[in-house]
């Protein structure tokens, strides 16, 4: 059984304290600015949203990982299966944060104006400039055309469905895995396969839709049919990285005795592969828009490339997310080299964090966004929360499943 040592506990609590302080700091400075200038946009909400996107993605990916192993009848990962199962433990907490964001956005509470299309009167044809009683933001024909999908009640209903569905499947897979330890046999395994298959169907639809609703709808006029896949690839890249880092941490602490270099090699392959898939998605989206050069599509990239605040980060995050994995993780030996894997993992976590920032901020804060104490502080705070919840659920169960049918195969994995 795993126990959290004091060092780790202290570390995560310090991170969470930093998060809390920067959250309060962010809201106080935002409020003071708002007092001076009523048109001021709160910067804390976009910071919370992109961090939630990042960490909720990691927790959600863990459910996907476990389900994928069941559906594919994969044997290699069983000895480290409790790691993604533990990361799933962070899903409810981040879901609640996401729900708070959605609810406050709809009610326009505490300065949450992330979603432009939720603004009052924006879909009202009478609310045009110069008309009697009209007020900013004025009627927007494009947003009005999307009203059937992008409206407040439907938005909140969808958000709740996604979150509850994901948490339901996470709990189900976790409890089946625990039950299997007690009962043994293969009946529970086939039950888990069935749940996983349903989760896959559910996730295929809701994963994409969540990306549209929470992230893509920020740039309401713009759309990309690839966006769901793009977000999925990003979640996979950071998710595999997190699974690897937690596995390595436990391994260094002397747990997970059956995890050998072959398992690490397999995780390394996935980190490498999904970094490239992400770049592929990034480029596919970019190249078509760049080539076609249609104003309504290009606007998205103009907001990122032609704005001084984001230009460097835009190219920088993309480059490090692509170049570091492809150069440093190409060879077989590199994927078995912990120092190198940890270095690349750190780089791509930072790179994808910066990229998450760029998904949300240019659409909400326009040219005024910058990475400051609030953004980094909340990021660290959420990291602390994720680590704490993961370690906490690791303590609840033995670190190796006992009666999984493929356990023996996994113990003897050799590639």
């Amino acid at each position: 059984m795993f126990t959290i040592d004091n060092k780790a506990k202290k570390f995560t609590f310090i991170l969470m304290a930093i998060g809390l302080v920067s959250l309060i700091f962010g809201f106080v400075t935002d409020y003071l600015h708002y007092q001076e200038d009523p048109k001021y946009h709160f910067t804390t909400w976009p910071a919370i949203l992109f961090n939630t996107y990042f960490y909720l993605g990691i927790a959600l990916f863990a459910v996907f990982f476990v389900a994928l192993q069941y559906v594919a009848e994969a044997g290699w990962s069983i000895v480290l299966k409790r790691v993604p199962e533990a990361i799933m433990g962070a899903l409810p907490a981040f879901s609640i944060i996401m729900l708070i964001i959605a609810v406050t956005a709809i009610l326009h509470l505490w300065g949450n104006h992330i979603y432009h299309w939720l603004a009052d009167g924006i879909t009202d044809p009478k609310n045009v400039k110069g008309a009697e009683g009209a007020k900013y933001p004025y009627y927007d024909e494009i947003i009005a055309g999307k009203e059937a999908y992008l409206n407040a009640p439907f938005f909140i209903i969808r958000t709740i469905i996604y979150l509850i569905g994901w948490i339901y499947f996470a709990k189900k897979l976790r409890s089946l895995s625990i039950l299997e330890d007690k009962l043994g046999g293969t009946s529970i395994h086939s039950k888990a396969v069935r749940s996983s298959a349903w989760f896959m169907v559910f996730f295929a639809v809701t994963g994409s839709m969540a990306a549209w609703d929470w992230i893509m709808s920020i740039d309401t006029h713009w759309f990309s049919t690839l966006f769901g896949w793009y977000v999925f690839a990003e979640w996979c890249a950071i998710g595999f990285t997190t699974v690897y880092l937690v596995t390595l941490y436990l391994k260094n602490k002397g747990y997970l005795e059956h995890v050998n270099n072959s398992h690490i090699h397999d995780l390394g392959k996935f980190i490498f592969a999904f970094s490239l898939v992400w770049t592929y998605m990034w480029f596919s989206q970019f190249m078509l828009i760049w080539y076609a050069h249609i104003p309504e599509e290009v606007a998205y990239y103009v907001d990122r490339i032609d704005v001084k605040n984001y230009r460097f980060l835009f190219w920088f995050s993309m480059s490090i997310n692509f170049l570091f994995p492809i150069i440093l993780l190409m060879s077989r030996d590199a994927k078995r080299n912990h120092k190198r894997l940890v270095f690349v993992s750190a780089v791509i976590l930072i790179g994808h964090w910066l990229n998450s920032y760029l998904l949300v901020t240019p659409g909400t804060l326009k040219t005024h966004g910058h990475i400051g104490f609030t953004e980094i502080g909340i990021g660290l705070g959420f990291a602390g929360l994720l680590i704490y919840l993961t370690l906490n659920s690791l303590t609840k169960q033995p670190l190796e499943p006992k009666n999984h049918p493929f356990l023996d195969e996994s113990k003897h994995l050799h590639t």
Partner: protein
Amino acid sequence: MNKTTIYGIFDDEEVLLSSVKEIRSNEIHIKEVYSPFPVHGLDHALGIKETRMAITAFIYGCIGLTFGIALIYYIMISGIYKSWPMNIGGKPNWTLYHNLPAFVPVLFELTVLFAGHLMSITFFIRCGLFPGNPEVSPDPRTTDDKFLMEIEVDGDISKVKKMLTKTGATEINLKE
């Protein structure tokens, strides 16, 4: 003394693998093993040097990339004295650098094409697999369900024969 070639024939790849390990630990040199499919871990057990295919892949990829850049530069940018520069999609067509995003798929595909095809050709040449090449395998059953271990011995063959039988060979043939 004549040089004798001994063929030990095996039914099962696990038995073959353990036999290879056992025979090699007795310092008997195994010349070659023939099998109908790749056996996991056999190359390691035989002590074969690490393949250099990865290096050739890199070189072939570089050739493909260079070829792609030259091709695209000639067709889309320079032409003969810039006689027919392509202006597709309203792109600037003065430099390769400005148009690069549009060329990335082409360059990528050519890199993969060159690396893939040249690697296959290299593999066939190194293995002597080309039309008209004589049969290499000493026993046609190795293309079906048997595994064959080839050992060349100078002098006394009884020790090797005994080793082979002990480690599970189902059949032993000799060739003077």
